[in-house]
């Protein structure tokens, strides 16, 4: 039952992404054309506040609900995978505006198109899994 808190957190996150227009296709066009501050303000302020939180996690001033130290996972360090993988993701993100969390939120707004995007994303993840050992790092 404790895990239900993640269900509510998901609902909360979806409402934030919807209300702050983070799921809006037009907002991404503006962002990638560097013609609006909106998305940069959202991502920037989220990163700055999160960085302060990370300091508190690191120093142990904030522990998790069970009293354990909070340690964010270290990301895989490959240069090719982060730049190339990131660019491939960016291509898709710029086209439909559907990022990994928003695609689930968009299901509530534009159900059929979001299902097509989601099927594409699952096929993409599937192909990555199949090729994962052969791709350059």
């Amino acid at each position: 039952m404790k895990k239900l808190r993640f269900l509510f957190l998901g609902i909360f996150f979806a409402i934030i992404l919807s209300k702050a227009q983070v799921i809006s296709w037009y907002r991404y066009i503006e962002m990638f054309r560097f013609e609006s501050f909106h998305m940069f303000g959202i991502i920037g302020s989220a990163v700055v506040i999160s960085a302060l939180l990370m300091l508190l996690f690191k120093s142990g001033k904030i522990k998790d609900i069970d009293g354990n130290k909070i340690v964010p996972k270290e990301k895989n360090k490959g240069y090719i995978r982060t730049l190339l993988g990131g660019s491939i993701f960016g291509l898709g993100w710029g086209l439909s505006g559907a990022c990994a969390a928003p695609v689930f939120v968009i299901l509530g707004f534009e159900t059929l198109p979001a299902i097509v995007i989601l099927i594409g994303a699952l096929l993409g993840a599937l192909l990555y899994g199949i090729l994962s050992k052969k791709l350059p790092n």
Partner: protein
Amino acid sequence: MDFILQPWPWYVGGPLIALVLFLYFYFGKNFGASTNFETICSIAGAGKISDYFKKDWKERDYAILFVVGLIIGGFLSANFLTPDKTMDLNSNTVKELTEMGFTNIGNQYFPTEIFSKEALFSLKGFLILLVSGFCVGFGTRYAGGCTSGHSITGLSSLQLPSLLATIGFFIGGIISVWLLIPLLF
């Protein structure tokens, strides 16, 4: 109540996203969204195709609940919480989109030209949605994260790979918006 129904400015949205990250970590888990694509593949039986997906997805039951929450939250937002879907877009953005033939710009979240039934049931429209999803699924897994995992969690914990990934996100996004969309429309 008024505040809930109005669009939220960036200085409300950004800090609230940080609050979600905080709660996610406080509840004992690493914040991110794109690993869920793999988890769904595992649940759907992709382990039969590749050992990569032979994972115990039950260990990620919390993440699946988060995804279910996202879907519920999306339906709630679409039907009850966003009566006003208009936005003040930059006039240059509007002008460029108009020249490409887009209509009703900024009066909705999702453009008719890509998300309407007519677009969805045309070959071009269907492929735009499917291929963009494919890039999102493949790219996030190859890069090891999306905007949540890399640009917010990774950047804020000062991880170099996340900076590279975020640069990649923008390279791809800029190619899409400056080259592909003008070519397609």
